[in-house]
């Protein structure tokens, strides 16, 4: 089974995010990038499926050095090879343009039996790109997946989806298929030292827009379906009462207020 695992580089969750001067994105020059958390669950699931069914896991990412970095981490975790979509023209791609380029790359690589992506990214968090890849390729798909069981012949699979209100739904999909993987489906492994060493010898293809047959109007900002007008810190509409003082003082004041003002104790 050939499994492609999509990885998005995002700012390290511990970093302090500052909006840039044009208010169109954050200042990302000096940030450290890591794989988006949900994509780690997706890659771990890909590796487990490979261990059960044999085959290859290919990691794919778009971006500059930060993408190469998350791909190397993916190889160190156990992926067999990597595809790096690298082109200055890709900058400014939205979900649509990213999915279009990834679909082209996956086609160029000979397609896949299964494509996994995180349910949503830590930055934009829309949860669109994986499903869009499915439509571009004409593959079946399922979102918010918390369990995967593939048939031995790689022709179909069962995926358990998490619905609202504590419901789960099991769906059967024809393969090839795209799954977006929910947080918590597994415990992602850490790369071992051996894995890190082995990763250095693994293949990483680097493809530009031209390599994928994409013209400048189909990529980056020109290929995007929307533009960022403004990034802002949302206004606080609530009238939260912030209680100050030392921890002991604040705790005491809070308890008084809960008793006398809110009357909930």
């Amino acid at each position, binding site marked *: 089974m050939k499994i492609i695992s999509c990885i998005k580089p995002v700012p390290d969750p511990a970093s302090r*995010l500052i*909006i840039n001067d044009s208010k169109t994105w*954050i200042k990302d020059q000096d940030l450290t990038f890591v794989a988006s958390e949900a994509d780690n669950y997706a890659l771990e699931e890909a590796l487990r499926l490979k261990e059960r069914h044999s085959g290859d896991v290919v990691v794919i990412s778009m971006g500059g050095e930060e993408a190469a970095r998350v791909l190397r981490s993916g190889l160190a975790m156990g992926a067999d090879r990597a595809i790096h979509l690298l082109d200055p023209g890709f900058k400014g791609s939205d*979900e*649509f343009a990213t999915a279009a380029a990834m679909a082209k790359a996956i086609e160029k690589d000979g397609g896949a039996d299964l494509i996994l992506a995180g349910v949503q990214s830590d930055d934009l*968090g*829309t*949860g*669109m790109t994986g*499903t*869009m890849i499915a*439509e571009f390729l004409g593959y*079946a*798909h*399922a*979102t*918010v997946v918390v369990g995967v069981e593939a048939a031995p012949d790689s022709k179909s699979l*069962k995926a358990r*989806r*998490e*619905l*609202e*209100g*504590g*419901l*789960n*739904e*099991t*769906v*059967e*999909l*024809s393969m090839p298929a795209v799954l977006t993987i929910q*947080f*918590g489906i597994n415990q992602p492994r850490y790369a071992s030292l051996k894995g890190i060493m082995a990763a250095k010898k693994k293949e990483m293809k680097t493809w530009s827009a031209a390599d994928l047959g994409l013209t400048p109007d189909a990529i980056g900002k020109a290929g*995007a*379906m*929307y*533009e*960022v*007008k*403004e*990034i*802002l*810190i*949302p206004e*606080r509409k*609530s009238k*939260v*009462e*912030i*209680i*100050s003082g030392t*921890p002991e003082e*604040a*705790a*005491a004041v*809070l*308890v008084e207020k809960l008793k006398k003002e*809110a009357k*909930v104790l």
Partner: protein
Amino acid sequence: MIFLVAEHKDNKLKSITSELLVFAQRVSRDFAQPVTAVVLGASPGAVADELETRKIDRVVVAQHEQLAEYNPDLYVEVLKGMIEKEKPFLVLMGHTTEGMDYAPRLAVALRKPLIAGCVDYEKQGNRLILTRQIFNAKMNMKAGLHGAAPYLATASPGAFPADEVESGGSAEIVNQPVTITSAPRRKVVERVEAQKGKADLSSAPIIVSGGRGLKEKQNFNLVFELAEALGGSVGASRPVVDAEWLPREYQIGSSGQTVSPRLYFAIGISGAIQHLVGMQSSRCIVAINKDPEAPIFKVAHYGIVEDLFKVVPALTKIFKDLKQV
């Protein structure tokens, strides 16, 4: 024309549909566009009748036995046909496990913009600008749409108040003939309640919830100790459950339990929208978090911006002392 795609279950509208109606009614006023609710189903008559009572212009019913159950391939085929024919200005769907399952496919099939997880919108000249949250609700993004309509959007649950939906319309019900040509690539095998354990929090009067700010599993004892001193129950945010500090049954939020206790403590919880929708109707919310920008403070009534490792033990001590008096 504004389309909203109704979500329904067991012949009843889901609450997200009322939120979509509110979104649609507001955009309708600002852009002078009529509203059409679209219902797909095998026999969605009761749902259409419920929609008819809302202040909208039209209910379009797409009835087909294969639509008895939600299916992404069939929803995309049917909706694509309707949208290409009627060319609505805006198509609204839920940012739910149903809406976000098909909306991205539909957008690609139509080659039209989709803004997912909208919490607000504005009118700039004649242009529609949609606002959504990014970086786990720490920031908002205003998005401008490229090209000509139709535009697609999903609405974040909880962003548009369902109780503000306007009724009293005389919507026309139109039955839309449906032909389905594609063979679905996916089918439902079963639908089950995920493990439901002892932690039924729906009627708990006091809940103390902990989040990732607790840093490690053993630190969750602080939450249990405070809950015990208060005589309350324990809840958790999603990352805590994902990290297996607590079983799934403790999770509060859109994919866990929805609660509205008298008193809710959010300890080290930043307040992703998925968590907020599960607890924001609590009568009194206390947030303890050292990040003053954390979105949890948007819904909290009282906040302490401090190190939880200092505040929580102080609170526990006060409540223990009170008990002994």
